[in-house]
């Protein structure tokens, strides 16, 4: 349900942002990771170059690699099955998989959630597209404010601890400072550098040179190794505010 509703807002925002029906559906069917989809649409809607939108989307999708890493042992998929399972590696399927007691429950959680979200997300997208196509001027309904609100809702669950807040604020300020100076769409990519630099800096108190081994202030244990996989509580990927392929 929540995923369908989230998909509806994606369909509506994508159409308002200038994508056509099939371009939007291609994103939901093929990209199938909500945060990246909103990211690409957001850059295009703001008048940015398609390449900048693609770069933003791909960077937002990088975290799925970490999820896959956690899932690879649980799922133990090979060959063609792995190629299919990979498409289902998203926030929700990961959250519903790695907290389970047995491998069987983990696999069931992964596939049931992944397929369920895929279906709801794509149906929602289609409904949103059809609904929004009835509107003549999206900005009249404030739909241009819907995208940043969606980003804010996606961002909020990740703002745990002072470091995450500081890095987020720095990124926002840097992006706004360069808005008048660089082509549209590029400020977001420059802000990505803030994340890379912050990630390279030692983020833990003196004496710790292995920041990701303990729970950093910007995480909740979601970045640990195999040891904490089974008792993972969903944490960062629990997706309260991002119920849909984010």
């Amino acid at each position, binding site marked *: 349900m929540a995923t369908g509703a989230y998909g509806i807002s994606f369909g509506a925002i994508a159409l308002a942002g200038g994508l056509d029906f099939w*371009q939007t559906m291609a994103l939901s069917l093929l990209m199938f990771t909500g945060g990246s989809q909103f990211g690409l649409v957001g850059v295009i809607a703001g008048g940015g170059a398609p390449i900048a939108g693609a770069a933003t989307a791909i960077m937002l999708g990088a975290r799925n690699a970490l999820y896959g890493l956690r899932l690879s042992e649980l799922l133990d998929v090979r060959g063609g099955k792995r190629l299919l399972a990979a498409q289902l590696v998203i926030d929700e399927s990961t959250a519903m998989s790695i907290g389970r007691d047995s491998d069987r429950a983990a696999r069931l959680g992964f596939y049931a959630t992944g397929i369920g979200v895929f279906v709801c997300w794509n149906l929602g997208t289609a409904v949103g597209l059809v609904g929004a196509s009835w509107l003549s001027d999206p900005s009249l309904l404030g739909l241009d404010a819907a995208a940043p609100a969606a980003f804010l809702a996606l961002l909020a669950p990740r703002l745990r601890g002072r470091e995450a807040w500081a890095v987020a604020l720095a990124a926002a300020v840097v992006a706004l400072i360069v*808005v008048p100076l660089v082509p549209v769409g590029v400020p977001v990519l420059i802000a990505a550098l803030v994340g890379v630099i912050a990630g390279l800096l030692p983020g833990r108190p003196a004496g710790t040179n292995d920041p990701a*081994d303990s729970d950093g202030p910007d995480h909740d244990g979601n970045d640990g190794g195999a040891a904490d996989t089974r008792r993972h509580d969903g944490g960062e990927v629990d997706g309260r505010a991002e119920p849909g392929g984010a």
Partner: protein
Amino acid sequence: MSLWIAILAACLGCYLFKLAGLSVPRTLLERPKVQRISALLPVVLLSALVAVQTFSTGSALVLDARAAGLAVAGIAVWRRAPFLVVVALAALTTALVRMWIPGS
């Protein structure tokens, strides 16, 4: 056409990241720096997107009705409102402010 190419390229890139996690040796992605950066990337990208899409139009910084929409969205997120409620409140607020102050 270039939009289609960008869309398909981005889809491929996102898919390859998903596949990479299931395929690459754990040691590479488990390096602490790599983990930290990939955890911080969504934070900085989303934060920058919020800022840019609220306070700029093209290459100009602007303060308009979207700011009011975002403020309401912020309150809604803080009050743990569902995603769709957050988005709808932001759009509604922005539309109302525009009716009240034309051109904003």
